[in-house]
C-alpha cells in the first residue's frame, strides 16, 4: 500500500495556530520595542545600580572565618576587614611598614634576664630569657552590632541561655531580633591569645607560638584536661571560659593594656600582631556560639565573625553570596596622608585625610569558572579582575622591547593595569636525602648545579607565564629586606655577567659540570647507564602536559632522562613526608615581610622528614643554620644584610633548589575603581578603596545595551519552519486516502 502515515483528507482546524502566532508576535513586538535603558544582563538588582557597592567574587567558600584558624588568602580577605589586630601595614609606604591599628603605638620589647631583671635594649639574644611587649589599645572602640551583646531590660545578656523553643525561627544570625555592642578592652586580645591553645580549635600557628609565648604549651594541656572533665560530666562539649584559666604569656595590665611575654627574643612577633590571629575576640561571642542548637544551625564563630573593623559580614551564604556592610560602630580612621614617591602623581593621595571606609557594601558572588568571571568584568559587573592565561592576549600586549601594556580594547574601556612582584617563590627542589641528587658530596652538589644551569627559567616564564615573573636568584623576593638589586643580587653560579646584563650560563657549561659530577653525556661514568631522575608532581591534568614536556626537554639537554611521576595531592604529600620524592616543585608565600620568613625554608630545624617542617628539600647545613639563628633576631641593617649574604653564598653553592621564579601579579581595574595600589602584606586594604558608582552605572548601561533584533530573526525562523510544515500538513489532509492506478 502506498499510503502515507497520516493520510486522511480532513484538515484540522487551524485557528489556534493563528492565535498563537498573533500572540507571540505581539509579545515579541513589545519585547523588542521596550525602551528601558537598563541592561538586561545585569546580574544585580536594578535598584542597586547607582549605589556605593563594590562587586567582587569568590571561587571557593572560605573554610574558616574564626580568626584563630583563618590563614589562607581566601579566608583572610574577609577576616582582615572584620577583625582588627593591634597593628597593620601602612597602605602606601614601601618597604612595608607596621603602624598602629587599634594599638596606641607599635610596641617595643622589654628584655628580661633569667631572674626577671631588666636587660638593656641592645642585649644579645642569647642573654635574653624573656621579651615582654606591653600593648596599649585606644579607648572608645566598639564592636559591630551582634546578638551576643544584646541585653534585656535588667542588663542581662539576652541570648546567652537560649532554650530550644527560642531557636525555632532562627536559621541565620540575622534572625535574632536584638543586637548590642560593647567597648573593646585589652582582655579581648588576651582571650584570643588563649584561644590559640583551645582544645577544640586548630590554630595553624599554635605550634609556632607555643615555642615563644610563655606557658602556652602547658596552657593547652590544662585546657585539654578541663575540657575532658567537662565533657565527661555533662556528656557534651561545654563552653570553656578561658577567663578562668590564666596564661603566663598573655595577661591584662589594665582595661586598655595587655602584655605578651615571650621566651627569648622573637622580633617577628610584631608582624604576627598585624594578622587576625591576634585580633580580639569577646568572650560573649565565644559563650553565645557555644550554646546547644546553634552549631546544628550552622551558626558558629567560624561562620559569623564578630569584630570591630570597618566591615561586618551580614550575609554568609557561600553557596551564592557573601556580603560585607560598613560597620555602623566603626571607630573611624582616615586615609593616609603620605605615601612613597609617585603616589601623589598617581592620584593615590587624592583622598588623604578622608574618613574610611569609602565603600558602603561589598558583594562577593560565587563564580566558580574563569570565563564567566572575565566576561562579566568586561561588561563592568565586577570592578577588578586578575588575568588568566586564557584572557592574557585579550588584555595585555607585549612590545618589541618586552614592555607590557594594555591592549587597545582594554584602554578603550578605561581599564587600568596594576603590576607587582609577589612576595612569593616557586622553586624546584632536590630532596637532599636522596642518594643521587641529594647529599653534600662534591659530586652531588655539581650535579645539582648542572641541572640548575640547564633549566631555563627565563624561557619558562616567557612561555608559561606570559612573562609574568622574574627569575629567582635565591629565596628572598623583591620587596623583602635582604633582596639585592642589580648585579649584586645575581647568582654567579648560574649567570655570567655581561655588558647586556646577566646571562644564564651556557648549556655546554652545564654539560661540563655534569661530566665533573660523574655523568659525562648523561651516563654514569662507572656503570655506563643513563642517568634517570624522577620528578614527582601533582600536575597531571591535560593543561599540565606542555609544562611537563618542557621540563623533560630541559633535562634532555643534558641527556638526563626525566621520569614524570604524576600523583594525586595526598600521595605527593605522603612522599614528601617520607622523603621518597627525588625532585619536586614547591612554593611559599610570605607571611610577613622579613627575610626570616623565607630563609627558614632551608633551616635544618624545619626539615620536612625529620621535623615535619617547611624545609621540603630537607636541606641541612650547620653553618647556614648557625647564621640563620643569628640573623633571625637582628634588626634590619648592614650587619644583618652581611649575614644574609653569607647565607646566600652557602645555599647558592649547595644548590638544594633550582631557584625558580617570583611571580608578577597583574591585575586590572575599571576606571571607576580608585585608590588601588597592590599591597601584598596588608589584608585589610578594602577600607581604602573607593568607587565612583555614577560613572560605573553610566558605563554599564552603555556597554550592555541588549541586541534585540536576533529575537525577531528567531521568530521569523520559527515561522519559516512551522508555516511550511503546517501547509504541508494541510496539503496531506486534502489528499485522497488512496491513489489507485486508474
Amino acid at each position, binding site marked *: 500500500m502506498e499510503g502515507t*502515515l*497520516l*493520510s*486522511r483528507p*480532513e*484538515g*484540522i482546524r487551524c485557528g489556534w495556530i493563528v492565535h498563537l502566532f498573533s500572540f507571540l508576535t505581539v509579545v515579541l513586538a513589545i519585547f523588542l520595542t521596550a525602551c528601558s535603558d537598563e*541592561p*538586561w*544582563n*545585569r*546580574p544585580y*538588582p536594578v535598584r542597586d545600580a547607582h549605589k556605593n557597592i563594590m562587586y567582587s567574587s569568590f571561587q*571557593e*567558600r572560605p*573554610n574558616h572565618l574564626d580568626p584563630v584558624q583563618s*590563614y*589562607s588568602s581566601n579566608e583572610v580577605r574577609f577576616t582582615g576587614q572584620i577583625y582588627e589586630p593591634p597593628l597593620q601595614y601602612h597602605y602606601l609606604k614601601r618597604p612595608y611598614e607596621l603602624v598602629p591599628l587599634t594599638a596606641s603605638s607599635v610596641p617595643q620589647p622589654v628584655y628580661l634576664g633569667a631572674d626577671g631583671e631588666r636587660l638593656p635594649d641592645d642585649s644579645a639574644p642569647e642573654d635574653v630569657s624573656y621579651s615582654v611587649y606591653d600593648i596599649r589599645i585606644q579607648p572608645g572602640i566598639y564592636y559591630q552590632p551582634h546578638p551576643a551583646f544584646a541585653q534585656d531590660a535588667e542588663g542581662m545578656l539576652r541570648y546567652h541561655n537560649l532554650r530550644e523553643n527560642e531557636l525555632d525561627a532562627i536559621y541565620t544570625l540575622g534572625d535574632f531580633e536584638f543586637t548590642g555592642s560593647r567597648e573593646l578592652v585589652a582582655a579581648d586580645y588576651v582571650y584570643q591569645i588563649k584561644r590559640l591553645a583551645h*582544645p*577544640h580549635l*586548630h590554630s*595553624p*600557628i*599554635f*605550634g*609556632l607560638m607555643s615555642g615563644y609565648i610563655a606557658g602556652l604549651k602547658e596552657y593547652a594541656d590544662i585546657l585539654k584536661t578541663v575540657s575532658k572533665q567537662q565533657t565527661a560530666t555533662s556528656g557534651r562539649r561545654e563552653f570553656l571560659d578561658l577567663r578562668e584559666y590564666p596564661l603566663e604569656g598573655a595577661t591584662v595590665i589594665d582595661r586598655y593594656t595587655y602584655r605578651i611575654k615571650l621566651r627569648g627574643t622573637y622580633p617577628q612577633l610584631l608582624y604576627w600582631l598585624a594578622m587576625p590571629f591576634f585580633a580580639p575576640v569577646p568572650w560573649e561571642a565565644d559563650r553565645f556560639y557555644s550554646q546547644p542548637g546553634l*552549631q*546544628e*544551625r*550552622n551558626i*558558629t564563630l*567560624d561562620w559569623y565573625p564578630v569584630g570591630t573593623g570597618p566591615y561586618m559580614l551580614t550575609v554568609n551564604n557561600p*553557596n*551564592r553570596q557573601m556580603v560585607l556592610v560598613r560597620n555602623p560602630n566603626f571607630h573611624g580612621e582616615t586615609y593616609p596622608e603620605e605615601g612613597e614617591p609617585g603616589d601623589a602623581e598617581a592620584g593615590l593621595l587624592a583622598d588623604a585625610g578622608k574618613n574610611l571606609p569609602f565603600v558602603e557594601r561589598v558583594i562577593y*558572588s*560565587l*563564580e*566558580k*569558572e574563569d*570565563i*564567566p568571571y572575565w*566576561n*562579566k568584568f*568586561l*561588561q563592568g559587573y565586577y570592578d577588578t579582575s586578575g588575568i588568566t592565561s586564557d584572557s592574557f592576549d585579550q588584555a595585555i600586549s607585549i612590545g618589541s622591547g618586552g614592555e607590557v601594556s594594555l591592549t587597545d580594547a582594554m584602554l578603550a574601556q578605561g581599564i587600568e593595569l596594576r603590576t607587582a612582584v609577589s612576595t612569593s617563590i616557586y622553586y624546584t627542589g632536590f630532596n637532599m636525602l636522596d642518594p643521587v641528587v641529594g647529599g653534600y658530596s662534591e659530586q652531588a652538589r655539581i650535579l645539582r648545579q648542572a641541572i640548575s644551569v640547564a633549566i631555563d627559567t627565563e624561557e619558562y616564564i616567557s612561555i608559561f607565564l606570559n612573562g609574568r615573573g622574574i627569575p629567582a636568584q635565591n629565596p628572598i623576593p623583591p620587596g623583602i629586606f635582604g633582596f639585592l638589586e642589580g648585579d649584586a643580587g645575581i647568582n654567579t653560579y648560574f649567570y655570567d655577567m655581561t655588558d647586556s646584563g646577566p646571562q644564564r650560563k651556557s648549556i655546554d657549561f652545564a654539560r661540563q659540570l655534569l661530566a665533573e659530577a660523574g655523568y659525562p653525556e648523561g651516563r654514569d661514568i662507572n656503570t655506563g647507564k643513563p642517568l634517570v631522575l624522577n620528578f614527582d608532581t601533582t600536575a597531571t591534568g591535560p593543561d599540565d602536559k606542555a609544562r611537563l614536556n618542557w621540563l623533560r626537554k630541559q633535562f634532555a639537554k643534558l641527556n638526563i632522562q626525566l621520569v614524570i611521576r604524576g600523583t594525586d*595531592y*595526598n600521595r605527593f*604529600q*605522603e612522599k614528601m613526608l617520607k622523603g621518597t620524592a627525588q625532585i619536586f616543585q614547591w612554593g611559599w608565600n610570605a607571611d610577613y615581610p622579613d627575610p626570616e620568613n623565607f630563609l627558614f625554608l632551608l633551616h635544618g630545624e624545619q626539615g620536612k622528614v625529620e621535623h*615535619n617542617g*617547611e624545609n621540603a628539600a630537607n636541606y641541612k647545613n650547620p653553618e647556614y643554620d648557625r647564621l640563620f639563628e643569628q640573623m633571625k633576631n637582628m634588626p634590619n641593617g648592614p650587619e644583618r644584610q652581611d649575614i644574609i649574604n653569607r647565607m646566600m653564598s652557602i645555599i647558592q653553592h649547595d644548590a638544594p633548589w633550582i631557584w625558580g621564579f617570583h611571580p608578577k601579579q597583574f591585575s586590572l581595574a575599571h576606571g571607576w575603581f580608585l585608590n588601588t595600589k597592590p599591597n601584598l602584606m596588608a589584608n585589610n586594604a578594602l577600607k581604602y578603596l573607593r568607587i565612583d558608582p555614577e560613572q560605573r552605572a553610566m558605563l554599564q548601561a552603555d556597554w*550592555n545595551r541588549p*541586541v*534585540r533584533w*536576533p*529575537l525577531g530573526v528567531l521568530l521569523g525562523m520559527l515561522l519559516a519552519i512551522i508555516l511550511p*510544515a503546517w501547509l*504541508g*500538513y494541510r496539503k496531506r*489532509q486534502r489528499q485522497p486516502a488512496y491513489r489507485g492506478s486508474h
Partner: protein
Amino acid sequence: MFAYIVRRVAYALPILIGVNLLTFYLFFVVNSPDDMARLHLGVKRVTPEAIDKWKAERGYDKPLVFNATETGIGRISETIFFEKSLKLFAFNFGHSDDGRDISHDIAQRMVPSLAIAIPSLVVGLLINITFAMLLAFFRGTYVDISGVILCVVLMSISAMFYIIGGQFLLGKLLRLMPISGYDIGLDAIKFLVLPVIIGVVSGIGSSSRLYRSFFLEEAGKDFIRTARAKGLKESRVLFRHLLSNAMIPIVTGVVVVLPLLFMGSLLLESFFAIPGLGSYTIDAINRQDFAIVRAMVFLGSVLYIVGLILVDITYTIVDPRVRLS
C-alpha cells in the same frame, strides 16, 4: 501493590548497604584520614598533633572496618564505617567534616537544583515531543530528513560547547541575559533562563530522535489504522491514540529521572554559579569531605531506587494490562 512496594523497599536495603560499602571503600582507597586532615587544615604550618586532633574530633582515628582492639560487637561498631554509615539509614546525615549540618545544606541547595531541573524537564519534554511528532508525521520527507540530521548534529556537540557558546552568544554578544549568577525569589528567574535554554537545547537531539522512534513504532500498529479507518479526525488519531500510547515509554523514562532531579546538574551549576546539589557534591569531592560524599551518594541511591519503584507503579497506571504482583 502494597506488598510489592514493601518487598521492593526490603530489597533496597542490601543494595544501599552495598552502595555504602563501595563508596566507603573507594573513598578510602584514594584518601586516608591523614590526607583528609591535611587538606582541611591547609598546607602551611600543619603539625602532626593538629592532624591527630582533627581526626579524633571527627572519629577518623578509629580503624576503617574492623577494630581488633575491641571485643564483641565493638570490633564492628567501633569503626569509621559503622559510625559514619549507620545513621544514614535514618536519614541522619550528620555534620560535614568542617562542622556544617548536611541536612540543612541539602535542603537549602535543593531549591536551586530544582529551579533549573524542573523547567528544563517540562519545557524540554514539550519541545521534544512536539518536534518528534512533527518528524514522525512527515516521515520520509525533507522535514524528517533535515530534522534527523539536525538531531544528530545537536547530539554530537559537547555539553561544554553549549554552555560556553550559550554564555558567549546570549550573555556576552547579544547581552540579553546575565552570563552567570543566582538570586533568590523571583529575581532568580533571569538567571535561570539561560541555563534552562541550554539544558533544553542540548537535550533536543537525543530525546527527539528517541521519541520519534516511539511515535513511528506506534504509528505502524493496527489500532492506528483502525482508528483512521473508522473515520476519526486526524487530530484525534494523533493526540488521542498515537500520543497516549507512545507516551508510555516516554513517561516511564521521565519518571525514573524525576527523583534524580534533586541531585542537580554538575556542569550547569558549576558554570552558572548556581548553588545546587550538583556543585555541592563536586565541591565535597574536591575538598575530600567524606561526610558529604557518602550522604550524597546515599541520597542518590535512595532516589534512584525510588525512581525505579515509581516507574513500576507508573506502568500500572498508564498501561492497564500491567499488574504488580
